[in-house]
């Protein structure tokens, strides 16, 4: 018990680390909630449009109020740098710069154009262009055939409200589930960084030459000591895991109280076990604290980048995915993806999830075997 208590004492001194990482994690989660809460489908209100207007015809005026109402209108100062910045950071998809007398010039069949700024070949820009062209062309057509100006806007709006019937065969997923997916995948980074650092640091402090010699002559047996340390490891991991689960409940209460939530929790718990094993392995390999913090950072960041915690897996190059398959992070994140996409809890749907969990367990066993081999070798020496 003494050792276990001591363990917790040392671990407690590293609370700052837990708070720091969790703080960053939560900040990014909050940003992600805002970014990813949109559906995957495109609608007119998803496109971000900005207008710089120099034409004062009533058609353009109506057009702008239509944009303001229907699209995600972005107000930007008319300043080259400002416009270009907004475009670069994807704050706007389509910038239109309407020249003077545009409407009149089009009506008199002149070859004039609205200047636009956009990401070349991007689908957002292509989609915006399609919708914007539709409005302007319809309005100008009405003007040409001689329909009263006051009626035009109403007519155009009425035309544009015509929609084809869309039938969705498969059920789509609630966006809340989508956001929870990112939360759990992102936790890959925090789990690895926090657990590896805390656990291996604590173990190294027990392994310091003088302290080790002191415990060796104490009446505590080697086994007792190991058991206490193991207990400490598990306690720390479970606490870290619980902190993240509590935040998951706070952020996504509707998701977490379903069976999906249970799967998420189970999945991340297995992953936490892996992180624990890895921490144990590292502390066996070296006693240098600085080296451990370096390696843990590289492992946490590296696996998060290549396995899809930061960038979704479907956006990674296939060669990168091949490498990622050799890390449990890949299976953990893939599972989060599958769990988040679950619509029905049938055997067929659940099977791949459990298989991925088994793969993670396999990794744990492999690390465990390596630890044992190393301990043997060390004892022999």
């Amino acid at each position, binding site marked *: 018990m003494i050792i276990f208590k001591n363990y917790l004492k040392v671990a407690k001194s590293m609370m700052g680390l837990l708070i720091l990482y969790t703080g960053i994690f939560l900040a990014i989660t909050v940003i992600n909630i805002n970014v990813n809460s949109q559906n995957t*489908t495109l609608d007119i209100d998803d496109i971000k449009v900005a207008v710089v207007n120099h034409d004062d015809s009533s058609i353009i005026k109506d057009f702008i109020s239509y944009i303001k109402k229907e699209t995600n209108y972005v107000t930007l100062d008319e300043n080259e740098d400002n416009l270009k910045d907004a475009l670069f950071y994807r704050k706007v998809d389509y910038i239109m710069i309407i020249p003077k007398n545009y409407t009149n010039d089009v009506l008199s069949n002149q070859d004039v154009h609205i200047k636009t700024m956009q990401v070349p*070949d991007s689908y957002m820009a292509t989609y915006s262009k399609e919708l914007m062209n539709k409005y302007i062309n319809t309005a100008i057509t*009405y003007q040409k055939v001689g329909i009263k100006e006051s009626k035009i806007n109403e007519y155009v709006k009425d035309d544009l409200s015509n929609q084809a019937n869309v039938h969705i065969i498969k059920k789509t997923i609630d966006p809340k589930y989508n956001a929870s997916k990112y939360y759990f995948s992102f936790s890959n980074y925090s789990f690895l960084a926090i657990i590896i650092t805390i656990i291996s640091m604590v173990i190294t402090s027990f392994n310091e030459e003088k302290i080790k010699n002191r415990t060796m002559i104490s009446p505590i047996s080697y086994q007792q000591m190991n058991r206490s340390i193991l207990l400490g490891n598990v306690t720390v991991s479970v606490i870290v895991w619980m902190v993240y689960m509590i935040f998951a409940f706070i952020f996504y209460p509707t998701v977490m109280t379903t069976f999906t939530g249970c799967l998420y929790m189970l999945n991340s718990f297995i992953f936490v076990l892996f992180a624990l094993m890895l921490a144990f392995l590292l502390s066996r390999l070296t006693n240098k604290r600085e080296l451990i913090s370096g390696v843990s950072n590289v492992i946490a960041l590296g696996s998060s980048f290549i396995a899809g915690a*930061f*960038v979704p897996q479907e956006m*990674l190059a296939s060669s990168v995915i091949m490498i990622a398959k050799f890390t449990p992070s890949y299976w953990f994140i893939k599972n989060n993806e599958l769990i988040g996409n679950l619509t029905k809890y049938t055997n067929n749907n659940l099977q791949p999830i459990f298989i991925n969990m088994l793969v993670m367990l396999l990794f744990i066993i492999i690390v465990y075997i390596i630890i044992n081999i190393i301990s043997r070798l060390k004892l022999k020496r």
Partner: protein
Amino acid sequence: MHELKYQFKILLRSKMLIFWSMIFPLCLASFFKLAFSDLLNSEKFESFNIAYVEASNNETFKNIITYMSDDDNKLFDVKYVDENEAKELLKEEKIKGYYVVGDNIDVYINQEDISETIMQTIANNFEQTTSTMKRIYQDKPEVFYNGIIEQIDLQRDNFKEEKINNLDMTVIYFYTLIGMSCITGGTWSITVTSQKEGNLSRQGTRLCVSPTSKLKSLIVGLFSAFVIHYVECMILLLYMIFVLNVNFGNQVGYILLLEAAGSFVGITLGNLVSNVLSSSKDSKISIFTSITLVLSFLSGMMGSTDIKYLISSKLPILANINPVNLITDALYSLYYFDTLDRYFSNFIYLIGIGLIISVISLFFMRRKQYDNI
């Protein structure tokens, strides 16, 4: 000269420092490359498969679909099938969706995504055009006879795209990394100043009682830290340019100048932290690293480009005192803008910050005295 040589030797022996200030950024840059290599492609169009089911004849719509699927403006490949076959294809996910075309158009899809949006937009477009034509026929039937209808072009393209190059947003991550690694140079100067301080190392104690000039030995130390760090930054830059093929624009000279200024700010910032705090070397380094991480986070590393944009548009002061952000923004302006104005304004801010920090830390340094150790 003599002192300089030994200072180099001492510094180069600290492997941990080299790891954090050079190997670690190199690893990060490689991870960025791996993660972002396919990102830009995901914004682009790719053609997909659809099916067309004819419930009753609708020549106009069929023409539109044929037009959209020919090789010049390929949006999708079309198969003309009956409804059952289309259902089967959709189930097996061989097609993204299908049209059932009669007087009205129905779109059948598996899930809502980009291809669905395109299919829907085309169908909507058709319905809307039909509605417009019907209305004109009702209100002004005469235009169909007097030739005005010939002048109508509902497919006119009103827009002309201004060519804008270099819109690859992922470069920002590499730029922040360079910014961060410049500032990380502070860990070198913390090491140097710790050597010079009486309460932190034996050498420092000896140095304090020796009759040599403290300022001179400090300047020599900081200078060698600067040189080592600058070389590291250049290695990182070369690695990014030649191994990872990151696009930096064509003005390498300006980038090297910027890195020198960045390293200078990093070194002075480390010196300041070292002089203000009176704790051990390790805790100084960890506090300094946390500061760098926060600065990098605010500059858009770690996927936080939204935050960077928010700060520069709403709180420009914060953007202008954050050296990591200044370096990132300067690199970005070299890459994206044609003029150098923005680069120079960032550069001047950066140098200004460096000088202010130097003065402050000099002020703190002068007050250090030890009654006993």
